[in-house]
């Protein structure tokens, strides 16, 4: 059983489109995160939710909107995609200690 699963794993789309990435964790953790990893492998935190409540919102364009329907799910919706949005997006969950990562979703914007 995959602890933190993301779908889709790969996403190729045109500029201006809207896309979503879904994340689910079966670890029973209260806190979930979205990280963006750029082409230089730099990991930057985007959002964090604790039990469906937004607790961290870094300087991210309004085109990015997270949604947490329940504490096991944290989805990321991106509007009006731009070339600079191309990256690998990682979902993670945590019980308050270490982070448990999904395998990432590679988004390519053409």
């Amino acid at each position, binding site marked *: 059983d995959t602890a*933190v699963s993301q779908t889709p794993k790969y996403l190729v789309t045109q500029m201006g489109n809207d896309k979503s990435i879904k994340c689910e964790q079966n670890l029973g953790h209260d*806190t979930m*995160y979205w990280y963006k990893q750029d082409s*230089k*492998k*730099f*990991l930057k*935190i985007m959002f*964090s939710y*604790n039990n469906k409540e937004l*607790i*961290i919102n870094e300087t991210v364009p309004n085109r990015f909107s997270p949604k947490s329907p329940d504490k096991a799910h944290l989805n990321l919706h991106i509007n009006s995609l731009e070339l600079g949005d191309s990256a690998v997006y*990682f979902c993670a969950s*945590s019980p*308050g*200690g*270490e*982070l*448990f*990562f*999904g*395998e*990432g979703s590679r988004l390519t914007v053409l």
Partner: protein
Amino acid sequence: AQSVTQPDIHITVSEGASLELRCNYSYGATPYLFWYVQSPGQGLQLLLKYFSGDTLVQGIKGFEAEFKRSQSSFNLRKPSVHWSDAAEYFCAVVSATSGTYKYIFGTGTRLKVLA
């Protein structure tokens, strides 16, 4: 502000040689520190963590790290590297404010292992 510095972008070692990856952090209180490994096309896997207690921490895959408060360092070591250790390694610190944990990562060190 909290930060993590990994001074070495790339490191190349021969298989069987020893390894040390450097990590320096900036944090006002006692830090929670982590090392993660990322293999190509994969997510990040926790190697080891330091919260408190013994400053020499043992992890998976034969890795260890030593917390040195005086040097603000948390260097990762392995006595004998295997070809399968080739990957990207990330050091991280977590800052906790009012029960909110924010994990801050270094820029990573890419390890190449020569046969």
